[in-house]
């Protein structure tokens, strides 16, 4: 999967939970889930669970703690897919 394909997939997963439309329209690797998109903690868990389903991977607490922005989400998904 290319970088752009992965970002597009993540965008589709994140879309239902975002609060800041403008930040979402400008989403890039540095976009922060909480600070930029204003996603709440419960919806952050929904995103994690949706990522698990989409990529058929299992995420742990330490992954959740690291998953603060698009870049770190991409890194974690890629690492799990390669494992």
């Amino acid at each position, binding site marked *: 999967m290319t970088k752009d394909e992965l970002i597009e997939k993540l965008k589709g997963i994140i879309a239902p939970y975002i609060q800041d439309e403008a930040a979402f329209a400008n989403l890039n690797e540095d976009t922060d889930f909480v600070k930029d998109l204003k996603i*709440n*903690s*419960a919806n*952050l868990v*929904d995103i994690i669970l949706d990522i698990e389903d989409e990529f058929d991977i299992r995420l742990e607490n330490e992954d*959740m703690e690291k998953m603060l922005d698009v870049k770190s989400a991409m890194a974690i998904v890629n690492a799990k897919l390669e494992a």
Partner: protein
Amino acid sequence: MNPEQIISLLPYQNPFLFVDGINQISEDGIKGHYTFKPDEFYYEGHFKNNPITPGVILTECMAQIGLVCLGIYLLRDKINSENQPQIALTSHQVDFYLPVLPGEKVAVTSEKEVFRFNKLKCTVKMLNEKGELVARGLISGMMKV
């Protein structure tokens, strides 16, 4: 952890405690009950001369039994006098089918859908004393100690 211990750990008290007892509890779900006292303050205003338990209060009762009591049970190994449960309601979607009148007793049953990364999501039902469905829905909250 027994039902009395769970209720004593709830962060609510009169006039906003909506749990009288817990009949069953396991890793997968809970069943509890509550009787709405006829002299509750909200009956004076909801509705004028026609007291009916507000849907938000039914939802609160469903959340306190179905989510918070169950969550305390699920977190029982981590709870002690220094580490009390922290809770926040994060979403609910509830459909209502029948009114609940002052003095009615309701039973709430809840099934755990998911409890991961501190988020507890449950399908919750409320039945009246005749066993008729009063309300049902999906309630989620964050729970941690």
